[in-house]
């Protein structure tokens, strides 16, 4: 080396540091085969569920019923059956017995028969046939539910599963990459270059962007799928909830990502990542199970929709059900954003205290020390 004059470089700003780190994270993710495969599977599942749902909703076949003589007109009036005309009661019974029809309807001449027909079934009373042929009183509903229960259940579970899968996949990824940096000791070079906060922020940002992109991709795919399969009514109902879900997810994920990074930084080996991050995993599972068991319980849902860890699932479900006032998601979002900030501050302290401690697991008390 000759006596060259060394160029003077200006230090990168905090934001530039964050950006460089997050860029590296994104590149590392995109290049990893396991990430691409997992994303592909997640997209396929969401696409498939929309298409299958569409097909099922279109092909509601009529129940097959055999009818004899004068009963035929009564059955035709109900306009809910695929009618097979039988010549005799015995023929109709034979059809019921061999299973080619659900039930048979025959005339009943007895004086005490109000409807003048008898339904013949094989093993038990066919409730579908009975209710179609029954005379019901008029019903007046004072406060009609906006969504039918089963659909609400599906939507709730859908949000729950997507949140759970995305959060655990990306959470585990962040945790692993934190420990990878510790285990390979690259962290010491990084720490001598940029601030620990910039490093943490970059990792959280990079992975959150990827997780968010995945959620947006799923949201778009589901919306397009609903539109293409002609389920526009459903799309109009679910649409706003999906948008809110994406917004809540963005904040909620940053919160979880910081927790994953902080807890993972306390151990030095990949084998220990699982046990170190298990408290966070528990926090991720809670909204999933709550939404499965309590999706028809407005009180539990209301509480869920304000607790930061479960709000990303709870609030969109309530929006879908039409239970939330316009200001509720905004308020819940503020709560979530504030708690995210608190967690980032605590998380970055744990992170910077624990990063250089190799070997045994760092205790929470040591990690929180100033």
């Amino acid at each position: 080396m000759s006596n060259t004059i060394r160029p003077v470089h200006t230090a990168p700003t905090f934001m530039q540091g964050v950006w460089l780190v997050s860029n590296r994270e994104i590149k590392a993710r995109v290049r990893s085969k396991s990430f691409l495969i997992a994303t592909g599977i997640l997209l396929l599942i969401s696409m498939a569920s929309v298409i299958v749902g569409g097909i099922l909703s279109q092909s509601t076949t009529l129940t097959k019923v055999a009818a004899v003589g004068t009963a035929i007109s009564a059955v035709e009036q109900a306009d809910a059956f695929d009618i097979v005309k039988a010549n005799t009661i015995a023929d109709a019974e034979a059809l019921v017995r061999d299973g080619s029809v659900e039930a048979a309807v025959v005339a009943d001449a007895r004086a005490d028969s109000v409807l003048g027909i008898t339904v013949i079934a094989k093993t038990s009373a066919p409730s579908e046939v009975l209710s179609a042929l029954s005379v019901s009183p008029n019903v007046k509903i004072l406060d009609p539910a906006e969504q039918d229960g089963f659909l609400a259940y599906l939507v709730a579970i859908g949000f729950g599963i997507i949140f759970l899968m995305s959060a655990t996949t990306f959470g585990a990824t962040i945790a692993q990459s934190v420990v990878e940096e510790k285990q390979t000791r690259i962290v010491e070079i990084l720490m001598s270059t940029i601030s620990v906060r910039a490093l943490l922020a970059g990792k959280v940002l990079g992975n959150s962007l990827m997780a968010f992109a995945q959620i947006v991709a799923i949201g778009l795919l589901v919306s397009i799928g609903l539109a293409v399969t002609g389920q526009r009514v459903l799309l109009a109902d679910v649409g706003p909830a999906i948008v809110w879900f994406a917004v809540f997810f963005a904040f909620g994920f940053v919160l979880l990502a910081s927790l994953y990074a902080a807890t993972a930084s306390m151990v030095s080996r990949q084998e220990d990542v699982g046990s170190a991050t298990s408290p966070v995993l528990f926090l991720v599972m809670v909204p999933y199970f709550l939404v499965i068991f309590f999706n028809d319980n407005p009180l539990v849902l209301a509480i869920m929709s304000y607790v930061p860890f479960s709000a990303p699932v709870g609030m969109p479900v309530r929006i879908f059900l039409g239970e939330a006032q316009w200001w509720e998601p905004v308020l819940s979002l503020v709560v979530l954003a504030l708690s995210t900030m608190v967690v980032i501050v605590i998380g970055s302290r744990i992170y910077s205290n624990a990063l250089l401690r190799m070997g045994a697991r760092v205790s929470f008390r040591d990690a929180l020390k100033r």
Partner: protein
Amino acid sequence: MLDIMSVNKRYGTRQVLTDVSFSVGDGRMTGFVGANGAGKTTTMRIILGVLSPDSGTVLIDGTPVTANDRRRFGYMPEERGLYPKMKVAEHLVYLARLHGLDPASARRNTSDLLERLGLDARANDTVESLSLGNQQRAQIAAALVHDPEFLVLDEPFSGLDPLAVDVVTSVLSGYAAQGAPVLFSSHQLDIVERLCDDLVIIADGVIRANGSPETLRTQHSRERFEIRTAGDTGWIREVPGVTVVDFDGDYAIFECETDAASQAVLQRAIGLGAVHAFAQQRPSLATIFKEVIS
């Protein structure tokens, strides 16, 4: 000029550094030696700002080092590490960019360094696919890729084959020749002896000696001579101010408290008969080291 001023560091109840002070002069290759656990790595981490001292400061040309100055250091931690799955060149560019280089300079420095360290053929291989020796070279490149003004290298020679040691030695001397302060630690005292302009010896977190190897020799070991004569040399024991260290008939090694004592021995030996050899012994660095830390 890099000054470490009265640095103290304690881990829990264990005092790991006590009032550590020394300087790394411009253009001086400064060897930092001490037993395992003596506090070398902690000191280096504090210089780099990776750890903060309980008290004391690190000065660059007289001003306290700030987080912004970190990018001016080239640091090689004792525990080596790069991202295993990143390509070598890409990795170096990333580190250079983190230190504030623009993309063009980052790429230029990377290819220059890889060529100088003989790694240019492996530029697009992942770090994990390199042999251990080549990973070490990549690690050195990582410390140098951002045109650092100061070098702080923890055990830069461990794990290197003799050829690589020569390559690294010449690269480091080149930096010192440009006027950069270079601080490096090593257990290989022969390399330190060959390379260093200054020496800092640390034991149990306390700086025991500090200065050029010549100064340390005069400070920490008494004048030592060897003599070979035609006859028996047993009489040397009786000369005042002389301690015999080794004796074997016509051969002896002895230490003198004064120059006059050594001359007295020589004159008496000549008076007794032929003197085949009389020489001052230069104690090796290893000897000084043992002397200093004992």
